[in-house]
């Protein structure tokens, strides 16, 4: 049996221009457009033909970005508003946990609000009386139920709202992102209540950003994106498809941000490498202390020689103080940096455990012989997760004449979920930088599980004896 049937639903909202909001009545009366004004003109489709069925007794999840139409869908199912096109059919009594305690009046007691809220949700006075103690116990508000609601903390307010809504005893329960209202204990209680709903074969529709909840609780899920159904079916697969799409979008955004950061730091991208040779001389040019000064324009800039630049250039980079930026003498220059993912293409988002390759394009104005290449990985808190260079790893000599490529290949990027920043550098054996790129490259590492820490060693659990553990993620 189908509890919720959504067929080709389109929902069009009207959008107002500023002009229309002012003087609406005047224009309506003058133009005789009273009825025309009530019809939409400039419109926006929140849902563009959505269809799905929710069989009775299932727990069904809706995931999607902000603004994808999830809440609109939920409201249509709840009966608040009607679809512009298509049909929504719901079997049985519906209770919607869209905004908890929406009807509470602050001046009157919790007790009276429970009655009024319950009646708004469709209970009779007698039904509420029968459930009253259960509601109060669930909300854990026995002591305060006769105090005016305005004296409640926001948690108490939400708990009472939740307790009333869930005790309406609906056949179909609609939940919109409301589980974040209480403390841990209350959240567990809510989840227990959902489990009870499942056991008693009632339908729950869950709209949430907590994907974990969807994979754990739902039998089925849809992914809404910009008003259309992008995926429908097994919750794990739907969530995975959604996450991949989010990663793709983040990739694009990070790529854009990285390009902007590199631009600001003066790192050359393809087509600008020719500038390197322009001021070639026997002596190293005045090293620029600032990341923004490119090698070609640094000597030409008036006043640049007066800067205390030598100190800045020769100072070994202080890992704990330095902000992102770029410094060095630029006798050797890192002209291009690329981060390569599993598929051999540039990427900014990597799955934990996937390979990562850092490609450096380097160029020397004059042949150098005391060259060291280094990389460092930092997490969002600025903790160095890993740092190495060719000298640490025992290189006895490294030379560069002209241009060349350096590849740093990480077979498995075993980091926990998070954002990381990279250092890449070319410096002398004594540590003086030729070209140091400090935290200029951002990557995002995604992991399926919310583990903590920094390092995610490949691992597995083994149990023996009386220990029984099931459901572990592979």
């Amino acid at each position, binding site marked *: 049996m189908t509890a919720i049937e959504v067929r080709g639903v389109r929902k069009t909202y*009207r959008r107002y221009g500023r002009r229309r909001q002012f*003087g609406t*009545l005047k224009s*309506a009366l003058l133009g005789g457009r009273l009825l025309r004004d009530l019809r939409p003109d400039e419109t926006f489709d929140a849902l563009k033909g959505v269809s799905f069925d929710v069989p009775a007794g299932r727990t069904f999840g809706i995931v999607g970005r902000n603004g994808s139409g999830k809440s609109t869908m939920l409201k249509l199912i709840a*009966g*608040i508003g009607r679809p512009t096109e298509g049909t929504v059919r719901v079997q049985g009594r519906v209770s919607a946990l869209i905004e908890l305690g929406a009807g509470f009046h602050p001046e*009157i007691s919790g007790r*009276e609000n429970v009655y009024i809220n319950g*009646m708004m949700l469709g209970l009779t*006075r007698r039904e509420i009386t029968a459930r009253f103690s259960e509601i109060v116990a669930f909300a854990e508000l026995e002591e305060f139920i006769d105090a005016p609601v305005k004296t409640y903390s926001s948690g108490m307010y939400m708990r009472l709202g939740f307790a009333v809504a869930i005790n309406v005893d609906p056949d179909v329960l609609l939940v919109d992102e409301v589980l974040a209202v209480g403390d841990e204990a209350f959240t567990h209680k809510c989840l227990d209540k959902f489990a009870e709903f499942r056991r008693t074969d009632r339908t729950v529709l869950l709209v949430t950003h907590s994907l974990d909840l969807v994979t754990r609780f739902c039998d089925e899920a849809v992914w809404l994106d910009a008003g259309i159904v992008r995926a429908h079916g097994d919750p794990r697969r739907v969530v995975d498809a959604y996450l991949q799409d989010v990663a793709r979008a983040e990739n694009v955004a990070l790529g854009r941000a990285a390009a902007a950061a590199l631009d600001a730091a003066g790192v050359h991208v393809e087509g600008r490498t020719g500038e390197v040779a322009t001021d070639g001389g026997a002596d190293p040019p005045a090293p620029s202390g600032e990341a923004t000064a490119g090698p070609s324009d640094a000597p030409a800039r008036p006043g640049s020689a007066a800067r205390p630049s030598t100190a800045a250039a020769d100072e070994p980079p202080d890992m704990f103080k330095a902000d992102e930026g770029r410094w060095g003498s630029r006798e050797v220059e890192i002209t291009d940096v690329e981060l390569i993912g599993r598929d051999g293409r540039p990427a900014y988002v990597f799955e934990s455990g996937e390979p990562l390759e850092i490609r450096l394009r380097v160029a020397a104005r004059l042949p150098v012989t005391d060259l060291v290449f280094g990389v460092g990985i930092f997490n969002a808190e600025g903790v160095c997760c890993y740092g190495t260079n060719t000298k640490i790893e025992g290189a006895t000599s490294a030379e560069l004449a002209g241009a060349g490529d350096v590849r740093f290949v990480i077979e498995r990027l075993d980091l926990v979920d998070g954002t990381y920043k990279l250092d890449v550098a070319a410096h002398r054996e004594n540590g003086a930088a030729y070209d140091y790129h400090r935290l200029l490259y951002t990557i995002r590492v995604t992991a399926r599980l919310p583990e903590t820490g920094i390092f995610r060693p490949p691992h597995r659990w083994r149990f023996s004896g009386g220990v029984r553990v099931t459901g572990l993620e592979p």
Partner: protein
Amino acid sequence: MLTSLRHLFRYRALISSLVARELKARYRGSVLGFFWSFVNPLLLLLVYTFVFTIVLPGVHPPELEPFALFLFCGILPWTWFSSSLLEASNVLIAGGNLIRKVLFPAEVLPIVTVLAGLVHFCLGLPILAAFLVYYGVPIVAGDLLWFPVVVAVQLVLTLGLALLLSALAVHFRDIRDLLANLLTLWFFATPIIYALSQAPAPVRRFLNLNPFTHLVVSYQEVLFQRGSFAEWPRLILLAGAALVVCAFGYFVFDRLRDTLAEEV
């Protein structure tokens, strides 16, 4: 529309609870509390009596004596009418959160406003009764039977206008501001501080177009004027008109129902 009405009937317990809440919440925290329901009309009456017996003595003919009582017959129902409409024009916008987030018939809100006004009106009646006794106005028992009818007609008329205004005000916020001024004009276009008979004949024809004129005249006839209530044909006529207004108001509200959740 009929199914909507049936839904509304199902929510009658909610309406009565909301009216009770409205009354309770209104005076919560004030020193006089519920007593304000009595004091408010009394103070209003004092102001008008002061103006028309001390500042402007003799502008009303002797047949309107005792003038305080005459005023009261009009002001009490007018206060109910005007405050209900003013509140109704704002009630959906103020309760926007409710309409957007909870599924329940939105017409409950303006209806509650009007009914809460009715309760306040009824709480003013003991004062009116006290005045009647104080001035020793002879009451015709037959007239008193008409009193609830007049109240009922006013209730129906006010409900219709409240439904109409509340739904339209969501779309045209201007109505709220317009209404406040319109009600002032309406007040003076109703024979409350003067008798209909005082107005010149052409003006009287205009005043007769005002439905509230007939209501106030009925109140005055029933409570104030000596002799039995002779104006009942026009009251019946008005009752018919009020029913039409109410049906129209509900019809418009029902048509706009689906847009309310989006527009508030």
